[in-house]
Every structure is written in C-alpha cells, then in structure tokens.
C-alpha cells in the first residue's frame, strides 16, 4: 500500500460553550489513499461535517477542543501554524459546501471569487487569474463561461452555482477535496450531473475526495470506500460494495432498510426505532445499543472495540450481522 494521503487517528472533538460540553466526535480513525473517494455516511448530527471541518481545522478555535492526530500528505495538521494552515487551505485541500448560494460571497462576481483564490495561492496578474477562472468554469461544464465569469451568485441556477463552487475549489489543483453534502440541496436530475462531474474531475485530476452525505444512493454512486458514522463514532467502514451489500453493523443495516429507494410503492419502510443519543451525555457503551435489536448485555457496558469482519473492513459491534462474534464470516446473514 502506498503512503496515505490523509490519516486520522483517534480524533476527538468536543464543543465547549455554556453548559455541558458536546462530544461531537469520539475516537474517529480514517485513512484515505491518494486518488481515492471516501464517503462518510450518517444522519444529521452524527459528526460527519465536524469530521470534515476538523480535517481543515475550520472548527471555531475557541470552542472546539480537538484531540488525536490528523496527518495530511505526511504533515501534522493539528500542529500547523495559522500561516501554514492558510497556505494549505484552498491550495492542497479544498472544500465545497451543501448550499452554494450562501457559500459564495453574494456581492462579488463568480470570476472575482475564483481569481481571488488563484492569486492568493498561485500569484500572478489579475488577468492571468481571470483566465484561469474562465478555464476552470469551462472545465466544470458551465455553459457560456465567459459571460458567467461576471455573474453574481444569485444570477445562476443552483446547479451552475455548485459547478462554480467546484471550479473555485479546484482552481489551485488540490490533492484532496472535502465535499460537504454538495448534492443535497440540488434537484435530483442536477444531483446526478454534479456527481458525474465530480467523478470525472476526480479521475482527471487524480485527487482524493472525502464526500459527506446522508444519501446512500449518492454514496453508492461515487464512493470507493464508505465510513458510517453514528453519534460521533465511525461504526463501520469498508469498500462501498461490501458495506452497502453486506452491512456488518446493525445501524448500517437499519439505514439500508429504511432507505426509500428500491421499496415497492405502498410497502412498509422499516424505520429505525428511537432517536440518536444526546451528545452531551453519551452512554458508556455502544451509542446505538438502545435502538438495536441485536444488543447484548456487553453493548451497554463498554464501547465495542473495532473488529475486522473481513479484509479491509471494520465494525464497532459485539454482534456484527452475518459474522460470528470471533470475526469469521458466517454463511447467511439477516439484515
């Protein structure tokens, strides 16, 4: 295996404010190889966006306590100075967001915002930066790009705005793109276009992508590997085919079963009973145990250590589905 592009080990994030601290992440470990696409799946509040922002150290410095290790291209992100961080952000590691309308500055043109980034990291004249911006807009498939260069964000459709946001993020040729639910706010038809675009650009530029979504269909479309998050922990990880095809963690299985896709009209959708735990008072054991049909006594006592139900797979569960507790796969599994 080559050296990982991104490696996160035992990442803890707690938000301190008024009252009890909120434990947003507990012991998150992740690994991304160059040119790989990792999807982080989870409900709102599961910590997927926090994980993404922690990678770029974009969490509010004063309130967020970060523990653990984040190493990007062999460098320790948590030890970086502000200056080093600013040099990395937008240049080697870029981010796109869920709502491009609010993520772009409303009073500057698209071209000005891309050119600003280009000049910040690559230097050069304003004219050269604009030329680069135009090039990027064409590359992400914005029609009549020359005209759109002088458009304001509100003058573009949602799909075009997200394309402009992608052009902005990729303008300095990053090795890693962090995508925070970039298709969630888009219409279904536009959604698939943006996904295809990201996949094409990923292949062309050979960058790694960490893609956060709550949509299993989106994950299946774009990911190489999948990490499922629940209450600030990664509960399962593995290749997209294995995790979505043969989930080991009951929560993943529950997510798949409650997905409205591939369900016949009128058929019952199996919702997971109960609600996620309060992050201010996490249970001592598995956070999912209170909602889990397969829970045993041990689940409530301690947090399940990671088990490896198969090569390149991880699940934090005492009773992984379809696998014997020792970690060997059994023949039939019940999802």
């Amino acid at each position, binding site marked *: 295996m080559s050296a990982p592009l991104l490696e996160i080990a035992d990442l803890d994030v707690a938000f301190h404010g008024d009252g009890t601290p909120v434990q947003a992440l507990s012991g998150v470990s992740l690994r991304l190889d160059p040119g790989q696409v990792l999807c982080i799946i989870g409900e709102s509040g599961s910590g997927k966006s926090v994980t993404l922002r922690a990678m*770029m150290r*974009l969490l509010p410095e004063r309130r967020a306590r970060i523990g653990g290790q984040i190493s990007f291209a062999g460098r320790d992100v948590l030890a970086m100075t502000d200056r080093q*961080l*600013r*040099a*990395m*952000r*937008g*240049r080697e590691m*870029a*981010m796109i*967001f869920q*709502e491009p309308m*609010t*993520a*772009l*500055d*409303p*009073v*500057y043109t698209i071209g000005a915002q891309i050119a*600003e*980034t280009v000049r*910040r*990291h690559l230097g050069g004249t304003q004219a050269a930066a604009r030329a680069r911006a135009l090039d990027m807009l064409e590359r992400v498939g914005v029609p009549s790009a020359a005209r759109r260069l002088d458009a*304001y964000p*509100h*003058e573009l459709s949602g799909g075009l705005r997200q394309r402009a*946001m992608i052009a*902005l993020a990729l303008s300095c040729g990053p090795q890693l793109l962090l995508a925070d639910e970039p298709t969630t706010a888009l219409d279904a038809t536009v959604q698939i276009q943006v996904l295809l675009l990201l996949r094409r650009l990923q292949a062309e530029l050979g960058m790694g992508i960490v893609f956060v979504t709550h949509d299993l269909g989106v994950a299946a479309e774009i990911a190489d590997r999948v990490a499922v998050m629940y209450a600030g922990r990664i509960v399962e990880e593995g290749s997209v085919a294995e995790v979505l095809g043969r989930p080991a963690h009951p929560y993943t299985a529950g997510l798949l079963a409650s997905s409205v896709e591939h369900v016949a009209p009128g058929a019952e959708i199996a919702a997971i009973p109960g609600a996620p735990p309060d992050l201010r008072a996490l249970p001592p054991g598995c956070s999912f145990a209170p909602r889990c049909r397969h829970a045993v006594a041990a689940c409530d006592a301690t947090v399940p250590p990671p088990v490896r139900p198969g090569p390149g797979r991880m699940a934090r569960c005492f009773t992984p589905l379809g696998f014997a507790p020792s970690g060997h796969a059994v023949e039939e599994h019940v999802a």
Partner: protein
Amino acid sequence: MGTVLRRLLLALPIAFGVSVVCFALVYIAPGDPLQTIVPPDATQATIDAVKHAYGLDKPLVVQYLIWLWRVLHGNLGTSISTTRPVALEVMLALGNTMRLVALAMPAALIVGYAMGVAAARFPGGWIDRAVTGIAVVGVSLPNYWVGVVLVILCAVQWSLLPATGMGSGHAALLSWESLRFMILPSISLALIPMGIIARSTRACVLDLASHDFVLTLRAKGMSESTVTRHVLRNALPQVIAIVGLQFGYLMGGSILVETVFSWPGSGFLLGRAIQNRDVPLLQGTVLVLAMIFVATNLLVDLLQVRLDPRLRRG
C-alpha cells in the same frame, strides 16, 4: 438605469404627500394664524382685509395650489416675524445645522462602526458588554440633558469650551475660533446615531460572520484581514441605510439641543417659528426638512442598489 428611474418616480408621490401634510399641519394645529398678525382689538373689516391679503379667504384647496405653485418656483413666502424670505431663513439655518452634522455624523459613524466591529469580534466578551453599555446609554440619555451636563462641566467648571452660540461669525469655518463652539453641540448630537450605528454594526457583522461564505473564505486560505474585508463590504449597504436615516434626523436639527446651545440651526428656527406662530416660516422649514429626508432616502436607495447586486433586478 431602469432601477434608478423607478426609484425616482416612486419618490414623487411621497414628495407630494409630504407637501400636503406640511400645508395641512398648520390648519390641524390649534391657534389661528391670523392671531399674531392682527392686533386683538382689530375690527372685522381689518381682519377681512388681512385675510384677503394673505389669501386666507380662499378655499383650502385653492390656497394649497397657490402655495404649491410658489414653492415649485422656489418661493417659500415671507416670514411674518422677520419679514425676510422664508427660503433665506431656512437656508441660513440649514447651513448652521450642516456645520454640526458635518462634525457629528462622521464622528458617530467612525466611533460607532469601530465599536460595533470590536464588539462583534468577541461576542459576549468584556469589550462587547462595554460597547453595548455605552451604546444603550448613548441612545437612552436625553441628548439635551447631556448638552446641559457638558456645558456645566466643560464650560462652567473647567472653562475649556464656550457654552453657547457660534462665535463672531467672522472667523474662518475650520479655524479653532469657530470649531470650539461646535464641539459640545456636536457631541450631544452624535450620541444617539453613534449608539444606533454601534448596535446595528455589531448585529450585522455577527450575522454575516455566521454565513457560510465566511467559512468558504477561510477554506480558500484567505487571511483574516481579507475575511474581514469581505464581511465589512457585505455589511456596507445596511450600515449606509442606517447612516442615511440618522443623517436625515440630524439635518432636522434637534430643537432641544440647538436651544440648549443657542445654535441658530434648523431646529432652533423651527422652535422660533412655532413660538411666533409664523405660519409661512413653519410650513417652509418643515417642507424643506421633509424634502431633505426624502432625498436622503432616495440617495440611500440608489447607493444600496449600487452596492448590492442582488437589488439590481426586480
């Protein structure tokens, strides 16, 4: 260009309405305008003659139209108490008020804006609490009372600055000789706008700082100063709207503050016109002040359209 024209056209009916109200005010207010002109023992014939001379015997609508016609030609009538043209009186007074506003408004803007930005930097911190305290005090204290206190302290106790008036009038406008008269009234006038600007700037900057585009700017690797520049640029249209409104209020002069300092500005003039029941002077002053307010609002509208691309359509 279409937007500019539309806003201009929208301002016209407002101006018309204002003129109607200004004219009608005098007839709604208690007291007969003739009272001050004719002696109490005048005969009915004299009263009728004076009424006819001032055109007060004609129907109200006709009176209004005659008045409007003159106003549109720049003729605001003659002051009853001074017998000088109302236009001249108003212009002189406005010039004097303008001198105070020229000092008070930039001071309020700079101090208020700086206070607001500083408070927004560490919300909930001691700077924020101090700014909030100062702003609330600035807005809540009656500014004429502050004026009196300033006079007692700076003029009476410490003999630093003159208490009232505006000096000989011969000194150059920017010389210390004339500036020293302007300091205390300007401070009294600046307090309310300063407080309002500080509070609004704080709210506006805090609101913008939580916007996603600020996160994008950081994720692009922009320096904090660039991020701040973007936030302030976004806050500008809102701040200008508030400054415009406050400018309008200040141009109206404060009857109380200008009276405390015997400053012959527009507020002072208004007070005099009311006391003397000088109807043409009152109508003319109120009309000009109202028109300044309308014009300021129009200007703010146009500036906002210029500064915020989202307002350019529709």
